[in-house]
């Protein structure tokens, strides 16, 4: 087996609350290979974003902390790394593109300065070299007339432009892993498509592995090689993207995939009402019960689901799901 770039093992993230310590992520393990695009899918509040932050050692502490498990970046544990080492890792090895391009750029510096400053901090290059690098990066992310744009301030750019700048900042140090946390949620659809084209293009050019966090199944189908579905802080299904779309195993995944509206050109075709998953994601503090976290919302739940939480078991080549229906048939 080839050495994986990033390996997360039994990750558990806890938050201290007035009601005691709650686990927002449990038993999460996954691997990321060189140049792979991994999708992490799930509803709001299922622990996607906090997982992403933990990869950078940025879980807000207090109240949060990584309470168990290891995050190995090329064999080096990030959880136990010193703050000084973490600062080297951030940007250089792993960097992140955030959800909100409108507010993620510093309003008092021009975009060129922001890219150049990052380059300078990591490469110890001179001011003029860093500036040239910034312009080169702006060009790379497809911003027209970069020499001029580099002097502009974030408020002078559109949302899509700003997200391109964010991507340029994230990529200026040529990280091995790029985490994109819902990078297009704040953008409109045409711009979304452009940004994803850019991601794919850059991935070919730079060869970084990408972790794409999203709740948009369409994006997952387009962009990723492999998908992890998270529910209430747990990984409940994992597999290659094609299998995920065509043959979801976990009832929750099936629900997610069925939530996509389909277009029909035939007016006589009366489509079924759009599927929805009833209920909401349980709050992490409700998860102390030893049952399947999805059971209250699952139409196929049976007695065993309410008694024991299902383990993640392999269901096919390269695939795993955490559902009793896949292992124990109701009897």
């Amino acid at each position, binding site marked *: 087996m080839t050495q994986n770039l990033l390996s997360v093992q039994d990750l558990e993230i806890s938050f201290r609350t007035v009601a005691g310590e709650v686990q927002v992520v449990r038993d999460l393990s996954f691997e990321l290979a060189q140049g792979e695009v991994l999708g992490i899918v799930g509803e709001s509040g299922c622990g996607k974003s906090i997982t992403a932050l933990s990869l*950078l050692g*940025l879980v807000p502490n207090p109240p949060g902390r990584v309470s168990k498990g290891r995050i190995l970046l090329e064999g080096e544990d990030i959880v136990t790394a010193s703050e000084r080492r973490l*600062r*080297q*890792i*951030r*940007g*250089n090895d792993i*960097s*992140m593109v*955030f959800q*909100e391009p409108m*507010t*993620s*750029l*510093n*309003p*008092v*510096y*021009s975009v060129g300065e922001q890219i150049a*400053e*990052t380059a300078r*901090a*990591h490469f110890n290059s001179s001011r003029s070299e860093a500036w040239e690098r910034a312009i080169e990066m702006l060009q790379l992310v497809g911003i*027209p*007339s970069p020499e*001029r*744009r580099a*002097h*502009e*301030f974030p408020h*002078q750019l559109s949302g899509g432009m700003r997200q391109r700048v*964010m991507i340029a*900042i*994230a990529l200026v*140090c040529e990280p091995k892993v790029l985490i994109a946390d819902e990078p297009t949620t704040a953008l409109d659809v045409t711009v979304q498509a452009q940004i994803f084209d850019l991601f794919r293009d850059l991935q070919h050019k730079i060869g970084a592995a990408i972790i794409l966090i999203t709740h948009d199944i369409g994006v997952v189908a387009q962009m990723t090689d492999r998908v992890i579905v998270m529910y209430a802080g747990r990984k409940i299904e994992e597999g290659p993207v094609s299998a995920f779309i065509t043959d979801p195993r976990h009832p929750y995944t099936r629900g997610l995939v069925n939530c996509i509206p389909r277009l029909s050109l035939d007016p006589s075709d009366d489509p079924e009402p759009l599927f929805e998953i009833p209920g909401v994601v349980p709050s992490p503090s409700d998860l102390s019960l030893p049952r399947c976290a999805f059971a209250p919302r699952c139409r196929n739940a049976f007695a065993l689901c309410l008694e024991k939480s299902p383990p993640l078991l392999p269901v096919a080549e390269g695939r795993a799901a955490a559902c009793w229906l896949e292992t124990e048939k109701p009897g």
Partner: protein
Amino acid sequence: MSDRATEMPTPPALPTPTAVPEAVSPTRQTWQMFYQNRAAMLGLCILLVIIITSIVGPLLYTVPPREMVWMPLTPPGQSEYLLGTDYLGRDLLAGLINGGRVTITIGFAAAVLTVLIGVTIGALAGFFGGWVDTTLMKVTEFFQVLPNLLFAMVVVMLFSPTLTNIAIAIGIVSWTATARLTRAEFLRIREMDYVKAERSIGAGNSRLIWKVILPNAAPPLIIVAALSIGSAILFEAGLSFLGLSDPNAMSWGRMVGDNRPYILDSVWGVTIPGLAIFLTVLAISLVGDGLNDAINPKLRQR
């Protein structure tokens, strides 16, 4: 003509680069706003005149300010000394020019000290939060509940009343408001997405505090700094009026204080330096308000 012909086959051009408006930095925009504000420009002009006079004045007008040169209590315009003399027969104009140097130096020095202490303490408290915040805010509260004037008097009296000590005393008693404001700004900006984003690409704490958050917190701090020069000048005048001034230096507050007992015999002895203090503080307030209007983005929309 032939040039145009060769250009013809090219596809419709993209918007020409000249269509993109020139990037205007926030600093330049602010200056433009300030420039259009008449009251602020007036304040700035008055301030510049006062500062230049107190720098150049003593070199041109060489009458010694602390020596008897004429009959005591001469009214303005009745001798070769333009503004008359005080109760000891000292030239008021010389006092005004030389006193301006002292007053303005102390004002600026105390304001710089106020801002240095206030911003440092507020920044650390707001950025780190937790026990750092609690401790620093307790210290701030301690300084806030001390009566300012009394505390400054104690400091000046404990050490000798030199100009440096007076400036330090004023700085020590007046930094608390700046610290609180800085802390509030840091608490607000600390949670901004761009701070998170900077952290995620490896920015350390010192970079976050001084190069990311502070420039964003600067607008209200610049205004407070400008206004604190005015209050430092008033404070110095107050201390001098009470007799706590450097005996080797003339200042406006001291002139008012010295001439106070003779106010019925010579109104101008207190009025002239008093007017100078008033004008200076007014000018600083106008500049401060102008800065406020120019920097505050909500007002800029008008």
